[in-house]
């Protein structure tokens, strides 16, 4: 297989995936927002969700990014052991961001944390973020997540005494949602990552918030129950869409975990605003590809 062909295919697929992600809301998210609208009793909060739904519709019709904060681009890559070339992946994914920034356009968001300099193309040190996992097979698959700043701003890492167990987890989640208030553009998805280590907990939390489909249940019955319990409790806080007061504070709570060291109980909490943007590309070894949500 010619590397050049694969390189072009990955780049093209990534540009298409970024465009799809920033313009179209995935069907599971749209469904969840409509449900939130139907279940909302507060007039003010209903009006906010109505505006969100109208905005989604307009973005689709006009083929424009649905929110001006097109975020920092995150790639979650799953590459098959038999995929013909690993060398071309990173380069193509980075290039795609540069091109997409101009053509879609995306807002140039990457700034140097010390000098404030903005390269203008959404590229920078370690950014776009590329997370690679290996899977069986000969295909390359990646999900693009443009992650906005407003919801990232309220992320939390807690390292409670491990003895506090699940009580510490519940409290950390309620505290985080209360503290976040209207900042992360509620209704949000709250991703919770438990265990591993500080970095692993946050990584799992972000994946749970951004990648897992809404309406899916946790395969672990204990966690599934905990998710539902927290979902109900958080929506009793009364924060509502955009913090104007109401039920629709969170669309879901998604929990994932890793085994932990006996001395620590890392709790990572990452928010995803209502503008959940993700699209996946699957590329075959011959360079043909499909982009879907």
């Amino acid at each position, binding site marked *: 297989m010619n590397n050049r062909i694969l390189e072009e295919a990955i780049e093209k697929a990534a540009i298409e995936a970024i465009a799809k992600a920033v313009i179209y809301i995935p069907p599971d998210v749209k469904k969840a927002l409509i449900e939130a609208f139907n279940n909302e009793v507060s007039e*003010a909060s209903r*009006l*906010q969700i109505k*505006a*969100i739904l*109208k*905005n989604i519709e*307009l*973005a689709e019709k*006009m083929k*424009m*990014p*649905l*929110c*001006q*904060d*097109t975020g920092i681009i995150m790639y979650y890559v799953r590459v098959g052991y038999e995929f013909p070339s690993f060398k071309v992946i990173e380069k193509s994914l980075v290039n795609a961001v540069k091109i997409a920034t101009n053509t879609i*356009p*995306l*807002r140039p968001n990457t700034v140097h944390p010390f000098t404030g300099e*903005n390269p203008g193309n959404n590229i920078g040190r370690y950014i776009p973020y590329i997370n690679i996992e290996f899977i069986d097979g000969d295909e390359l698959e990646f999900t693009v997540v443009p992650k*906005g700043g*407003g919801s990232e*701003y309220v992320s939390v890492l807690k390292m409670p005494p491990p003895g506090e167990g699940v*009580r510490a987890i*519940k*409290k950390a989640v*309620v505290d985080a949602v*209360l503290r976040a*208030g*209207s*900042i992360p*553009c509620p209704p949000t998805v709250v991703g919770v990552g438990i265990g591993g280590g500080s970095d692993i907990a946050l990584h799992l939390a972000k994946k749970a918030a951004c990648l897992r489909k809404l309406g899916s249940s946790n395969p672990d019955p204990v966690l599934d129950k905990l998710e539902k*319990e*927290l979902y109900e*409790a958080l929506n*009793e*806080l*009364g*924060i*509502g869409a*955009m*913090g*104007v*007061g109401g039920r629709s504070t969170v669309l879901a709570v998604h929990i994932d975990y890793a085994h932990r060291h006996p001395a620590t109980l890392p709790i990572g909490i990452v928010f995803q*605003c*209502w*503008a959940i943007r993700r699209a996946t590309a699957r590329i075959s070894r011959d360079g043909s590809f499909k982009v879907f949500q």
Partner: protein
Amino acid sequence: MIYLLKTPLQEGDVRKLKVGDTVYLTGVVVTARDAAHRRFIEYLKEGKSIPIDLRGGAIYHCGPIVKRINNEFKIVVGGPTTSARMELYEADVIKRLGVRLIIGKGGMGSKTAKACREFGAVYTIFTGGAGVLAANTIKRIIKVEWLDLGIPEALWVLEVENFGPLLVTIDTTGRNLTKEIIEGAKRKYKEILKKLEVI
């Protein structure tokens, strides 16, 4: 109540607005976020003139996506940014520049609420993230100033038609909806933790 308002706004226009009212605004809106606010204050201190008359005006906390087509700018998407960052400056902007309507997201603090009460201004929120909906009400770009601050930070002077829904969350009576909602949530906090068997 729903109000259709036109700029320039009179003091009476905003004094009648109450927390929970919805406004649709027609006329001129000026975008200003962190850097522009900082410069407002700097210029006021140094006695330099601000390139736009904001008396009776509306400012919008927004860093838009702008496309340049044949040397002409077009606002593609322009939803609100988090207003809390402007809390440091907004009271002075209201007092010294005579702004009557502020549009943002997430709510503002007590300094701004106090200035709203004293000088006759309101703070409203536009749905966070709804950048296409906002851009759709922009008729044209009248002009742009302070472009040296960068596209998202510049002052974009926009002609808008029925820009909204803008929900009043700080009115001229000292009420602040965002604060009330969070205080309400704090009151429910204990009960919720009990239900979750945390305490």
